[in-house]
């Protein structure tokens, strides 16, 4: 049966061709992509691309991550260049439970603010 998808005919893929085995496919390095919406704003991490070098990574980052919405600037950084913590050390981020005073939500000030505002209005 002839496929209605013209790509099937164009691809000319021979399924028994050894070049198409997954083991033979090399992998490019990964680059992390950082996107800045407007000048002065923070660059935010938006995802990754695979590419052989930074120039090609930039080409792909532009198409993958800037097609919608505004962009002022783009960074690509080789993932291998990022110095990161080990998940093994995740416990070092845990806060001691009895130090609630370090946590802004532990301060109950809304009552006082409300009372102050009402007082201002009544004057």
């Amino acid at each position, binding site marked *: 049966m002839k496929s209605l998808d*013209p*790509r099937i005919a*164009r691809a000319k893929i021979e399924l028994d061709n050894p070049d198409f085995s997954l083991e033979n496919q090399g992998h490019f390095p990964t680059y992390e992509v950082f996107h800045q919406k407007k000048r002065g704003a923070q660059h935010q991490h938006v995802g990754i691309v695979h590419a052989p070098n930074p120039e090609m990574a930039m*080409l*792909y980052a*532009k*198409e*993958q991550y800037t097609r919608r919405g505004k962009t002022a600037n783009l960074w690509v950084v080789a993932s291998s260049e990022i110095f990161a913590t080990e998940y093994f050390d995740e416990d070092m981020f845990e806060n001691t439970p009895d130090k609630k005073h370090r946590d802004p939500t532990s301060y109950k000030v809304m009552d006082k603010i409300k009372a102050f505002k009402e007082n201002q209005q009544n004057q």
Partner: protein
Amino acid sequence: MSEYIKELLYKMADDQLIIGHRNSEWTGLGPLLEEDIAFSSMAQDKVGQSQHLYQLLHELGASDPDTVAFTRNAKQFHCCQLVELPIGDYSFSIVRHFLFDFAEALRFEALSNSSFQPLAQVARKFKGEIKYHTLHANTWMQQLGNGNEESKAKMQSALNEAWPYALGIFEKGHFENQLIENKVFFGEEALKQQWLDLVSPLIKKAGLKVPHGTKNTKGIGGRVGIHTEYLQPLLNEMTEVYAIDPSADW
């Protein structure tokens, strides 16, 4: 007065539509997922640009863009022969993309100062898109030209094959002198010179040889409706849905 402007618009719009359609044939088959997306989205940009140009033609009295794009046969198209050639392997598609898009970038840059205001506006609007297209094309040229022996050989052979057709981009139309005199466009000969000055160093930087000859040997005639055997089958495929149901919308 508008005959000579129409001639210019037709050849530009047809170039964009046909190269856009050709390049879209890589969708789903690109050498890398990211490249597939990038090449497809540039193909879509080209088709979008052609629609803007067909719209200008419509405003000068031609039929609406869909009718103009989907109801003409090969003889009524004014695209250069370079854009209608089959996609070949990726080296050929990249080389064509490189040769065509740098010519296009220079053409639109010149037209952004055109005395025909609607076209000057459209040319300025496309500037950013085209800048990315040429960046993409040149990055690949440098990558593969300076790659290994195999990639270099494939790029050189694709370049030798595409070069005479690329010169056909600059085939003059009937109204060349009017376009220049009325400051609508500075003319194909001037464009060709700018293009040679721009692409030659980039080709050399990619470790490739600039093919001999700057005069058209083949690949001419596209502007007056003489095309290769490849255009009509492309049109048949492109207009398949329209031929079944002209009111189809998607």
